[in-house]
């Protein structure tokens, strides 16, 4: 039987366009030290280290766990590297959590990062491949047609994407670690920003960030730290192929299956009512209404109505991305872990100005690839 697992320490860097004050090792160490301090632990208390990041070509450092081992106190310990595309930050946390829930380790440090300023993600995503159509468009160009298809299918009006862009940036004003702090953000400012990939405007897209996230996960008999633990109530991963005839890229089956699995583990039957908040991977504005439907927070076709009603706003009944989300900070490899980490902060009551009052149960979600890789966890303040 699986052992109980809890988050007992969290840490993240100040996310910025360029963290040229630190090396990659310095960046990950900054987040890791903060997580250790939060858990009131030192390096020697950690049994194993699990690290994740998006493609190695984003920094030009192959299998970076080899280089980062001493910076993360992993010498003499098991060190593990996960890579599952954009969902990697979430998957990395799940691999670390399984090391605890399987009973193999008592305390595991998990870290995810990206130092995008060391390279150019757009370039690294667009390397020509034999027998493959050159996209040369990065992620936004890939997802824009999916968004168009969603708008057509649901009848959503144009302004929904802009609403999400404004809402998440307003939330980020409450989060001192967020990359973007756009104090004057409003619908007009988003509408006036440059069109990147129709229908996505510049301010409807995530930034390119340097940053890292870290968590300490612990078994029930190894809890520590000043804040209460965030108990893991459910965790799941699902993958589906990139392309085949009939695949629904707008509402992927893998996302539906993954949430069904994690809800069953956590005893969640009505996500909108039962969760107090959610941190969901929304790198482009329209993915909020799309994932609202995919994650079962509303009926199919109604996601945009939920956003429009203000339900997902900070003062709504189900705040989504109170931290500002991926739209406000996007160190790609860490973006998924930040979702998982932020919900842990919420149920531990340590989210400061972006604390959702009384949050006790929350969903963290990350996705990657061509909307085909999903990682999710449910954390709560009650022991499962």
């Amino acid at each position, binding site marked *: 039987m*699986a052992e109980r697992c809890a988050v007992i320490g969290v840490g993240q860097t100040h996310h910025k366009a360029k963290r040229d004050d630190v090396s990659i090792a310095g960046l990950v160490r900054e987040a890791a030290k903060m997580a250790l301090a939060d858990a009131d632990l030192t390096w020697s208390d950690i*049994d194993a*280290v699990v690290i994740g990041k*998006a*493609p*190695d*070509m*984003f*920094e030009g*450092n*192959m*299998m970076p*766990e*080899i*280089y980062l*081992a*001493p910076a993360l106190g*992993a*010498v*003499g*310990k*098991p*060190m*593990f*590297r*996960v*890579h*599952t*595309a954009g969902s990697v930050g979430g998957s990395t946390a799940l*691999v670390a959590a*399984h*090391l605890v829930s*399987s*009973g*193999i*380790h*008592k305390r595991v440090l998990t870290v995810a990062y990206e130092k995008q300023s060391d390279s150019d993600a757009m370039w690294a*995503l667009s*390397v*020509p*491949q034999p*027998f493959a159509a050159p996209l040369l468009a990065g992620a936004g160009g890939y997802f824009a047609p999916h968004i168009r298809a969603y708008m057509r299918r649901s009848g959503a009006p144009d302004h929904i994407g802009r609403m999400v862009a404004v809402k998440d940036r307003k939330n980020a004003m409450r989060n001192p670690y967020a990359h973007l702090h756009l104090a004057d953000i409003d619908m007009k400012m988003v509408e006036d920003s440059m069109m990147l990939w129709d229908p996505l405007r510049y301010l409807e897209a995530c930034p390119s960030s340097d940053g890292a996230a870290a968590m300490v996960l612990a*078994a029930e008999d190894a809890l520590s730290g000043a804040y209460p633990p965030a108990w893991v109530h459910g965790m*799941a*991963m*699902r*993958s*589906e*192929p*990139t392309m*085949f005839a009939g695949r629904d890229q707008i509402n*992927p*089956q*893998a996302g539906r*299956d*993954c949430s069904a699995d994690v809800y069953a583990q956590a005893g969640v039957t009505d996500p909108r009512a039962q969760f107090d908040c959610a941190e969901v991977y929304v790198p482009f504005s329209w993915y909020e209404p799309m994932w609202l439907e995919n994650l079962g927070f509303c009926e199919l076709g109604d996601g945009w109505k939920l956003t429009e009603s203000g339900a997902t706003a900070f003062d709504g009944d189900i705040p989504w991305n109170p931290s500002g989300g991926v739209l406000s900070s996007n160190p790609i490899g860490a973006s998924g872990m930040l979702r998982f980490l932020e919900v842990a902060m919420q149920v531990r009551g340590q989210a400061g100005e972006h604390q959702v009052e009384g949050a006790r149960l929350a969903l963290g979600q990350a996705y990657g*690839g*061509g909307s*085909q*890789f999903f990682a999710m966890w449910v954390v709560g303040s009650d022991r499962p």
Partner: protein
Amino acid sequence: MSATARVVRPVSVASFAQSQNVRRDDERNEVEGLMPVIAEVFGNIGITKDDVDFICSGSTDYLIGGPFSFVMALDAVGVWPPRSESHVEMDGAWALYEAWVLLQEGEIDAALVYSFGRSSLGDLNEILTLQLDPYYEAPLWPDIVSLSALQAQAMIDAGTATEADFAAVASRSRRDALANPKAQVRKDVPPEVLLQDDYVVAPLRRHALPPVTDGAAAIVLAAGDKATAWSERPVWITGFDHRMETHALGARDLTTSPSTARAAEVAGVASGKVDVAELHAPFAHQEQILVEALGLDDSVVINPSGGALAANPIMSAGLIRIGEAAERIRSGRADRAVAHATSGPCLQQNLVCVLEGGA
């Protein structure tokens, strides 16, 4: 350590398959190279992908020179309906570790693990340099053969080995590979002839280097009823651990492998007689370091498959060690085996898996 107190759930290496290991596979892409391997690993035990609960793979983008090489590789399995699936940017032996961890929880009973890589697509010696510290080491381009030569020279300087020892390992490995139809370099050349090779980087002569190999491998892990149903003689994983060393080469004693020794201790290598060991020692001199770290005596058969000196498909060579060791047990030629995988320059990270035959 917490690991010692835990009761290990028996997990069996139920099936193993590997591609023909070749210098250059120009005919097929990664998916096409993997498909027959996946078909074989399921076909061996008469199951399909629907019989496994989890999938985990190991690969590196730097071989193909593009991001997300593992994404399309999933098409070799066909993950529809969607599956619980993960990927490590590590040798497949670590993908197998991740799957083994999940099986330990007792909620799933079977997993598919695979890995792949075409080393021939680029200059592997240069590519592996990109594993080094990107600020202080990689820009100087110390290639992996040169770093391994430093390690071999350290052994000679310490008086623990000679060039003749390296040649003996290379000679034996490639002679043993004559019995392994999947191996790439299979020949019977005596050590004294090998010692006439020129140096590539002194003190390493050509024979002490691994071949450049394109290849793929897969394993099915099973627990509970599936383990006994899928195999007349299950091969149980009875100990499993991996450990990391520092990246600073100057801070390591390159003639020893404390990470292997620690992993062997946690995995319980010494708790029984070892019949056979499959060691992932890409360079001939590394075998001796590993044998000493694992505490193996002269009675242990080392690398009967020919090891990484006979075929070194990057990202699969470690997983293949586990598969080869398991097959020795399944076929009745051994009762207890040690399999090992390595990552990083000069054996920086090491994994040890202990396998035992069941009734």
